[in-house]
């Protein structure tokens, strides 16, 4: 992942997403790992992470429910929906339920305004929401019936890049980077993985989702991925 960029700091945000995928939130240990990997101080990493809404520097519930209340959803009753969700969860935006199942957030526009009001659960979309549909959704989530659609919090992209950089004929920096990619061991994942041993951190790691959503399955012919520096990362799944 670091090798995909001409300057390694560019991989900071993708790496923080990986930390969040493994720990369920951007943990202090994850910040230190990323800092070490990129030659930054933990304060620089944390200072960047804190700018972005998607990075949670404190643990969150199993499901992060982000309810959009921006203009289009508001006109479609998002605040009334949010009130209903608040009452069913007994939690306000920014809070986690007592059973640590749900963390509620009031989100800005999620770009699903044609199906307002909408919300996301661990960044998976649910549009045309009504109080009744929320009740059903919450029940399904609690029962673990949506494991295929809704991965654990922090899991952004379940499809891994299949190849490294190939454009050898490009400008000098691209060649340099691709040489590095060809020789360097897979950078981020093993490091982060082996250091994730403290019981506190381990308990926040949720079971990995093995099934892919229907639409994402790749055609048969493409399952055999060419080898490459990123391939080992991909095969971890």
């Amino acid at each position, binding site marked *: 992942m670091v090798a*995909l960029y*001409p*300057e390694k*700091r*560019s991989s900071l*945000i*993708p790496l923080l997403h990986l930390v969040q995928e493994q720990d369920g939130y951007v943990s202090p240990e994850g910040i230190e790992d990323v800092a070490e990997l990129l030659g930054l101080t933990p304060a620089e990493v944390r200072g*960047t992470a804190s*700018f*972005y*809404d*998607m*990075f949670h520097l404190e643990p969150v519930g199993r499901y992060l429910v982000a309810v959009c*209340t*921006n*203009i*289009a959803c*508001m*006109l*479609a*009753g998002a*605040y*009334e929906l949010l009130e209903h969700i608040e009452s069913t969860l007994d939690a306000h935006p920014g809070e986690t339920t007592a059973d640590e199942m749900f963390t509620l957030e009031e989100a*800005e*526009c999620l*770009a*699903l*305004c*044609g*199906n*307002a*009001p909408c919300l996301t659960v*661990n*960044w*998976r*979309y649910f549009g*045309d929401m*009504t109080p009744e549909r929320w009740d059903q959704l919450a029940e399904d989530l609690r029962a673990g019936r949506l494991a295929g659609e809704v991965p654990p919090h922090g*899991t*952004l*992209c*379940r*499809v891994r*890049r*299949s*190849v490294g950089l*190939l*454009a*050898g*004929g*490009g*400008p000098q920096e*691209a060649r340099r980077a691709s040489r590095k990619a060809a020789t360097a061991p897979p950078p981020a994942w093993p490091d982060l993985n082996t250091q994730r041993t403290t019981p506190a951190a381990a308990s926040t790691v949720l079971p990995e989702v093995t099934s892919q*959503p229907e*639409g994402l399955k*790749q*055609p048969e012919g*493409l399952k055999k*991925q*060419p080898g490459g520096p990123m391939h080992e990362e991909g095969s971890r799944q």
Partner: protein
Amino acid sequence: MSPSKLGPQIVTSRFGRAASWTLEPYLASGGYEGLRKALSMSPEEVHQAVSNSSILGRGGAGFDAGRKWGMLRKAQPAYLVVNGDESEPATFKDHALIEADPHQLIEGALICAYAINAARVFLFIRGEMALGIERVQAALNEAYEYGAVGERVFGSDFSVDVVVHPGAGAYICGEETALLESLEGKRGYPRIKPPYYPAAIGLYGAPTVVNNVETLSNLPFIMRNGAEAFFSLGNGHSRGTKIMALSGHVRRPGNYELVFADVTFRDLIYDPALGGGVREGRELKAFIPGGVSAPWFGPEQLDVPLANEKIAEAGSMAGSGAVTVMDETACPVRAAWRISRFFHRESCGQCTPCREGSGWVDKVMRRIEDGYGRTEDLDLLLDICDNIAPGVTWPPAQTTICVLGPSIPSSVAWAIRMFRDDFLEHVKQGGCPFPPDRLPTSLAHA
């Protein structure tokens, strides 16, 4: 209006088709032919074709794409950064394009990369669009396998790599210099201008083109069918088609691809094949013509054509193509408050007028909506707006590094201008005179 106003579909032609995001159906419908055509031409000829098509950037500013490429400083390395950080409230066209047709976006990006001689493309996709990121990454893996990306694309001398880069939740990263900062692994602070354009000093200080998802998604069509086919649609500066993202109190909210400059707001909102009219037969109160940064329009502007220059003449902006409709039951104070709250939450905090002004406006608007407002608050609000963007005119005066700050006054100032009585009624009644918005159980969705 004839049904032909709905077509021809350039960028949404594969919407709704089975597995439209995978390679096989993409190839079956002319996929990657545009790239093959481009590779048979010289980069300069590709650039010329795009210039001839007169395509304006679809991100919000409406900057001529061919001109943007032409401003590129001649130096290597050069980069193409695709702006897929769509976060302008009520805009949901790029989200749909990314999820439904990622190969079209990748092909468009490759055509651009060839024309500007960029060996590395970064697809910056908004982090919240997790499914979109997964589909783009899966499509990119397929494109590598197919030989459309990588070393010697389709056997030509052109080599290019594409990297999918997820955002992490910050509206400001839609601003191109903030996006570049974010891509460099920093806080998304817009850069001080000059330099005005990343074409001179962009990513890592190298010449960089930043183009919107919809802009690039048009390129395969332009290459395949020629610039003339694109230019023949629309008129004036507004050529080709434009996706209008229609939301709010209409019967059929959704994305509609329409011939640029050929359709009016009335068509978009009331045509049975498009918006289908205001929900439950109510009266139109107001609409926002181009994303929440734009000044509001009322029923008297319904006949303004959907063209960049016509909307600008009428005193607002086409922006991202997001149209939000409010019916007679909508509370203008509540709507303008929610928009100012959005800017308050999303201000990056670099510039005082924006950082302090947005919070101040948010609080005063909330006070009025909650029934604790005073008559003099209206003058106070306009005074704050005047301090954020002097004159409170459109287009606004610039007092901040980026345009987020000057976007704050539009909704508040125009709401006060258009609906002063509603504001005063809040003060008089000590509360909101409008019913809370009801859930749209009766809505049919496009």
